């Protein structure tokens, strides 16, 4: 099959084109550094010719400064393990950036593969008054140039038409190989500039749309205030908008429980279904509306072009603790999940800076921790308003800030000890603002929702069954401590008792190694086995059974939450050693333990109960 590689600078629309052609689901967002791995997909041209397409991380030149750039260059050179080199290159470029980036395609000619230039985002270029003489460009560069709007069907038709003929030529080996260019970057740039000065003309506008917005967004003072407001509103919305949807899900779950109890014969089977499966999985699924609202905001920020601006605004802070400016984006992705976050640290050139970023990424509040926060906050913080603000939203925001604070503190400590060394700067292109592509946006939201729901099926369901089993035997047990679960939990409970954790918490923390939100489902199963009335909400059970100091200690623990096997697996993979995942686990455990302990005893001393 014909194999084509999508090469080009970050954020020029490669993944958008890839998704549109192959029906793939590569992540698309309006900031550099979204794609850090290669991805393969297939599609067929109208004529039936089959093509395999490679989506690659963005690269500026041919040096491969950072890991993600090396992945892309290795792919093109056929140096990736188990992958052959592509037959030809589709070099993509943001048409509005042709003046700055043209030398990149000249460099890419030196790969020696048949190559075409796909000038993408022609819609934006037209809007900004940029006209490009494609014939002149083609003549000067010496390779075919095709204009394209990756996000529109009509915008891709020229490219598809062209591929019909050219694809056949490449297959038969009759497609022209490009003439090699000079190697020296300075000479290439000079040549690129002389080409664009003839082929590209810009209507000088006083101020573009993006510039006008940036005067506010990047304002040294108002910009930071705006960033705070955005984050604040986001967390408030998560709490205030989710109520009705959550009530609906809760009603559904309790109907299901009652239905199951009515149909099934009295006894163990009913208990397994009602207390094990439905209570456990349901306890986490209730939080789906909150997760959806959270991601509705995050995806909007990602698609609009705001993310790179946020990186600019907080860079001073990053520099103060010695972090690389590029670390911001991996850390931000870690709010969804530390795994993609840790992987996107590949965009950081210096190994030491990359390592620092990887080590602190688990301190960002990932989506799996939200159910824990929601549960405990729901149980102990009244759903009242402080002025116009939801009190619960304020507490959640506070917990997240605590996580961020400790991430920065740890970064500062690591940079002065373990990962000492100068860190490089920011150097990031700020993309122009774009309205989100509605379809991509919905797909992104759907994907995030499905990840959450799938985890409920894949991890939480088996974990709930397991906990139910351990809690239900031996059948003559009358207290939790006498059950198998109680015996297992009893092994670690002595370690956790000094920080205020009870036996139920100890039991729930063990399966939560698989996924943090399993702590919530396990607590649901544990408490619902002992509970006759299925209509009592988990939050009410927790509120009745825990003291406030214990609940606060539990929250403090989850700010650090060392347990998550997949995080350590990815750290092991990305650092290629056992040392760093073990170290990360160790330091997170120590922090979690002390934070919980200090919180517990402070709360006790303050007389809270």
């Amino acid at each position, binding site marked *: 099959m014909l194999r084509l590689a999508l090469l080009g600078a970050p954020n020029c629309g490669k993944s958008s084109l890839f998704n549109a052609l192959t029906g793939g689901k590569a992540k698309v967002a309006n900031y550099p550094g979204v794609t850090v791995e290669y991805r393969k997909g297939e599609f067929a041209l109208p004529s039936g010719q089959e093509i395999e397409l490679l989506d690659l991380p963005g690269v*500026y*030149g041919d*040096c491969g*400064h950072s890991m993600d750039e090396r992945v892309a260059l290795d792919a093109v050179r056929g140096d990736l393990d188990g992958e052959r080199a592509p037959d030809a290159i589709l070099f993509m470029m943001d048409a*509005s*950036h042709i*003046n*700055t*980036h043209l*030398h*990149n395609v000249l460099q890419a000619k030196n790969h020696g593969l048949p190559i075409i230039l796909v000038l993408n985002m022609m819609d934006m270029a037209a809007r*900004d008054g*940029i006209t490009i003489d494609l014939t002149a460009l083609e003549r000067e560069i010496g390779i075919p140039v095709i204009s394209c709007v990756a996000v529109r069907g009509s915008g891709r038709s020229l490219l598809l038409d062209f591929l019909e003929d050219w694809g056949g030529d490449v297959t038969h080996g009759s497609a022209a190989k490009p003439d090699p260019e000079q190697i020296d*970057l*300075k000479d290439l*740039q*000079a040549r*690129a*500039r002389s080409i664009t000065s003839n082929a590209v003309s*810009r209507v*000088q506008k*006083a101020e573009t749309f*993006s*510039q006008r917005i*940036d005067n506010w967004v*990047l*304002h*040294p*003072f108002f910009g*930071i205030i705006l960033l705070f407001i955005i984050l604040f509103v986001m967390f408030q919305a998560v709490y205030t908008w989710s109520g009705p949807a959550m009530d609906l899900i809760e009603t559904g779950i309790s109907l299901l429980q009652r239905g199951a109890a009515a149909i099934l014969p009295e006894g163990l089977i009913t208990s397994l279904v009602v207390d094990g499966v439905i209570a456990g999985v349901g306890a986490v699924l209730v939080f789906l509306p909150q997760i959806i609202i959270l991601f509705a905001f995050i995806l909007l920020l990602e698609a609009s072009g705001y993310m*790179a601006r946020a*990186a*600019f*605004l907080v*860079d*001073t802070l990053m*520099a103060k603790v010695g972090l690389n*400016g590029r670390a911001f984006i991996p850390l931000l992705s870690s709010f969804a999940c530390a795994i993609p976050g840790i992987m996107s640290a590949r965009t950081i050139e210096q190994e030491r800076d990359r390592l620092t970023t990887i080590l602190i990424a688990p301190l960002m509040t990932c989506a799996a921790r939200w159910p824990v926060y929601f549960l405990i906050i729901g149980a102990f913080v009244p759903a009242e308003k402080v002025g116009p603000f939801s009190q619960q939203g304020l507490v959640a925001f506070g917990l997240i800030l605590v996580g961020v604070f400790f991430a920065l503190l740890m970064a500062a400590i690591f940079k002065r000890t373990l990962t000492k060394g100068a860190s*490089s*700067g*920011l*150097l*990031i*292109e*700020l993309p*122009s603002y774009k309205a989100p592509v509605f379809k991509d946006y919905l797909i992104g939201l759907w994907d995030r929702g499905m990840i959450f729901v799938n985890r409920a099926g894949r991890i939480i369901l088996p974990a709930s069954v397991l906990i139910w089993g351990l809690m239900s035997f031996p059948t003559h047990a009358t207290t939790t401590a006498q059950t198998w679960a109680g015996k297992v939990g009893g092994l670690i409970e002595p370690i956790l008792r000094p920080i205020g954790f009870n036996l139920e918490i100890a039991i729930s923390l063990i399966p939560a190694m698989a996924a943090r939100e399993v702590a919530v489902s396990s607590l649901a199963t544990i408490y619902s086995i002992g509970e006759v009335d299925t209509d009592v909400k988990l939050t009410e059970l927790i509120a009745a059974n825990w003291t406030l100091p214990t609940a606060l200690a539990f929250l403090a623990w989850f700010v650090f939450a060392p347990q998550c096997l997949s995080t350590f697996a990815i750290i092991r993979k990305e650092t290629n050693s056992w040392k760093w995942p073990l170290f990360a686990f160790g330091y997170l455990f120590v922090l979690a333990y002390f934070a919980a302990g200090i919180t517990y005893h402070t709360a006790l001393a303050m007389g809270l109960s």
Partner: protein
Amino acid sequence: MIKRLTDLAKNETGTIVDFDETDPRLSVRLREIGFAEGDSVTPLHFGLFGKNPMSVRVNGALIALRRKDAHAILLKSIPTEVTP
């Protein structure tokens, strides 16, 4: 005296003449992302503390960088007029 990108005020335009090669990797990086001799550069935004980082308009693109890195971009000593 050599004029550098870091010497420009907000909205002031300069022309790149050369790169400081003290850190050769840095100058390659700067070139690759889109700075070259002859380009007009205009700082548009500065960070809150010490004007760090800064964002620079070059050929229609907007690039954010720290002053430490911007220092390696050398400019023609007489600033050209701001083109309206």
